[in-house]
């Protein structure tokens, strides 16, 4: 199973990787339990920085599409097919839309929403 990325594409490289691997899972090109290449192998084959591939793998692991088994390597998660269809970005966007709509209905201005959002993000990061 081959994946192809385009370094000129406006979509970030790690996102392209995540999308391609999820697509490979959904289309049964790779099956649950299949092993995946190491970060180093994939980074060298795609001529990418290994941090980019590591970031993609981290996101896929968070989404339960892949699972790391220490020295044995990285494998496709047993529930990867279902988990690959879950779009966290769409979910976040829907929830934010609801919150913004509620704020606007209450008369909160755009700049107040932005300031509140930044402050909420900062307090969550600290």
């Amino acid at each position, binding site marked *: 199973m081959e994946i192809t990325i385009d*370094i000129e594409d406006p979509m970030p490289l790690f996102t392209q990787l995540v999308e391609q*691997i999820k697509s490979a899972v959904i289309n049964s090109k790779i099956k649950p339990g299949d092993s995946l*290449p190491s970060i180093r192998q994939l980074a*060298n084959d*795609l001529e990418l920085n290994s941090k980019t591939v590591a970031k993609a793998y981290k996101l896929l692991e968070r989404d339960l599409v892949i699972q790391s088994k220490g020295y044995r*390597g990285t494998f496709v998660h047993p529930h990867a097919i279902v988990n690959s269809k879950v779009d966290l970005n769409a979910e976040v966007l829907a929830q934010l839309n609801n919150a913004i709509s509620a704020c606007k209905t209450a008369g909160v201005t755009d700049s107040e929403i932005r300031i509140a959002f930044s402050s909420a993000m900062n307090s969550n990061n600290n």
Partner: protein
Amino acid sequence: MSINILFYVLFLSQIILISYYYPKQIIKRIEGVLKKFPPESYPKLYPESADKVIAAKIRYQLLNQIILVIGLLLMGLYALMSKDYDNGQKFAEGLPLMFGMVQFIPFMLLEVSGCRQFKLMRKANKSTSRSADLTPRHLFNYVSPLLVISAVLLLFTFIFFDLYIHDFTITNDLIIKIITLSLVHALFIGLAVWHLTGKRLDPHQAIKDRSSQTQFSLQSMGSVSIFLSLFLMANSAVDVFELGYMEIIINSIYFQVIAFVGIGGMLRTDQIDTINFDVYKADNSII
């Protein structure tokens, strides 16, 4: 006398195999590629002009012809000088080894030239799309565990054998051999890691071709390791059992086996008809 005749046959075979037969096969291969995959249709295959490839081919051919003549002259010189030695006496045992190393120089120069071509290919590659296989490359996907275990076991067998025949005393000779073996195997491990996880030299090479190249390289390294241990064992045995006159025979056989496994194996595995040359066409993006 019989040892001398055997040596002549083996040394002649070494000269012909490494400096005539294999170079002829490689030249035939270069000419075949130039004819079947010309620069007009496969421009990515020629980062420099085809004339440079032809010039490199002629240089390679000439160098091998010179080495072939030197080999025949050395054989004549050996025939003249060996008259002064008894049949059971050790004489010029380093000749096949030293000459063998010289015989490999054109192949090494060809490899260096190949690496230079790949570097130019990478520089000229303007494609923004990059592909990779999602299949991990593990050692045992390419070589059988039996080959690796045999190579490791033989390595330790050699050390034990050498200690055994020297009454378990660590000789300087053994230390040198262990250091040599360690260095050779460190190189093999480095090359194996590079083949499994490293960057590809040829930016256009098809995934399938890379896989078969990796398989061949790992298998030949395993075989060379086995033959190296066997060679060193034989080398130690002839010293202890006072069969020094056999050393010249063993040395010549060793170099021919290495050439057969390395160069011969490459020619058998990477055949032109099985390589995907479409990736070098002008309209093709990287595969």
